[in-house]
């Protein structure tokens, strides 16, 4: 049976301490720059903060994973290398990487530190995963949120590394690491700059009738009725019209969050080694609530008890949750 490690988000030092105290087996975090995919304003860690965070976590038996999971544009690779050197010196337990050049650098320069393959690398087949294992010594793959449980079970049989899957949080629809939607509208790149619908380009407008529209760089992404639940102004969760859909519809996905709390035993049985909670951009309150709930659930399952999940729907986007592709391939 897998260990069912709980991998928890930390956008700030306070959130990291909250996650550790709430029972995280590992926390993941990033620096305050483009080297990670949550390069949001006011978020993330300075090297000094990371040093303190590592000390705090290690003193309590919690691992710290550093997200280095964006793609350096040519000419700027040094920023990623320096981030890796700094974090290795500070004693992080693993790097989460996507770019082959970054992976190669760390494998050669810091061979003692574990490499995890980020979901941003979009490795969704045994062959792709084996490529990264064979060449860079990747020890764990974070699987894209597009696979069914039988598919995950099959992959596990054919790869030499651990599997980590998302169990809660933002339900990304597009293949991660292959999405330039934000850059198309804003000029800031998800892959190169670590941003997705950057706040600097977001505007909310309230209308006379109580409805609210969300705009990204001047493009209307959605308009919510007075009582309607809202979501992030991400392009893939917007409402658009098509020639035969003049009324407007969620062309990609509704505002909805992933919640696999009911599938944990099946995921463990399929060979998933670690469960990832999304949300470095969320508050301590979110981290506390979600980590506590999943800590209790995993402990129950490990002890052979029925897990009794706290209701987390209030923390979900659009206040709706889904099991996405994990439940049925009809989702596709």
């Amino acid at each position, binding site marked *: 049976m897998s260990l069912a490690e709980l991998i928890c988000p930390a956008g*700030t030092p306070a959130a990291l301490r909250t996650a550790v105290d709430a029972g995280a087996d590992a926390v993941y975090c990033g620096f305050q720059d483009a080297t990670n995919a949550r390069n949001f304003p006011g978020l993330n860690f300075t090297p000094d903060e990371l040093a303190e965070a590592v000390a705090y976590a290690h003193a309590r038996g919690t691992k710290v994973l550093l997200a280095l999971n964006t793609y350096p544009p040519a000419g700027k690779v040094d920023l990623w290398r320096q981030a890796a050197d700094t974090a290795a010196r500070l004693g992080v337990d693993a790097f989460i990487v996507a770019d082959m050049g970054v992976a190669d650098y760390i494998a050669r320069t810091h061979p003692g530190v574990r490499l995890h393959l980020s979901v941003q690398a979009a490795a969704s087949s045994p062959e792709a995963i084996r490529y990264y294992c064979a060449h860079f010594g990747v020890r764990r793959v974070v699987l894209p949120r597009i696979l069914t449980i039988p598919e995950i079970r099959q992959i596990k049989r054919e790869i030499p590394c651990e599997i980590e899957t998302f169990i809660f949080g933002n339900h990304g629809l597009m293949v991660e690491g292959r999405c330039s939607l934000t850059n198309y509208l804003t000029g800031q790149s998800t892959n190169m700059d670590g941003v997705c619908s950057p706040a600097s380009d*977001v505007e909310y407008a309230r209308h006379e009738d109580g409805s609210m529209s969300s705009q990204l760089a001047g493009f209307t992404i959605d308009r919510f009725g007075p009582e309607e639940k809202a979501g992030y102004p991400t392009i893939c969760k917007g409402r658009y019209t098509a020639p035969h859909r003049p009324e407007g519809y969620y062309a990609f996905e509704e505002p909805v969050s992933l919640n696999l709390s009911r599938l944990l035993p099946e995921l463990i049985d399929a060979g998933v080694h670690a469960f990832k909670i999304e949300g470095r951009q969320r*508050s*301590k309150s979110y981290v506390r609530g979600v980590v506590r709930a999943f800590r209790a659930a995993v402990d129950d399952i490990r002890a052979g008890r029925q897990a009794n999940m706290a209701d987390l729907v*209030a923390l*979900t986007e659009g206040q709706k949750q889904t099991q996405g592709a994990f439940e049925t391939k009809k989702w596709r």
Partner: protein
Amino acid sequence: MNTGVHTVSPVRLPGGGVVSRLACGVVQPILSRVVRRIARRHPSLFARLGPHQGTDFLIDPVDLPFALHLRPDPDALLFRAVPRDAVPQAGAVIRGRFLLLLELVDSEEDGDAAFFSRDLEVSGDTEAVVRLRNALDDVDGSIAEETAAMFGAPGRAVLARLRRAYTPEMERT
């Protein structure tokens, strides 16, 4: 295109006139003390605000007789109560019920969740709001408790009463 700075015209809410001005006068000395103390105890907060230390935030507790004007400039900190009929031009506006805003400051509630449920409304410069949120979220402990503690036992009693008064209507799940 986003120009980085927006002006937001205030919506009409009660909280103007004489009563409001009296209330503002009463709370102003308290606000000044509170904000100076928080700034002293949590200096790292300003680093997370980055370029938005000079942004004017209008924090609008819809159920109080006045709004709050915050400019988190470490060299010229400003936090004042303003009547709703005399609010300044603000770069960003955050609007919700008072206790919700208090709980957001203390990270007892999740800002995104409050936004999804439409209990929290944000307008103007969204990045400024996100930075303020993240800066406050990195503060350990309770700013509300700290504030209440400044006023000793009576202060804590007021906070407790306030929370009790609101709790039944907070549809917690």
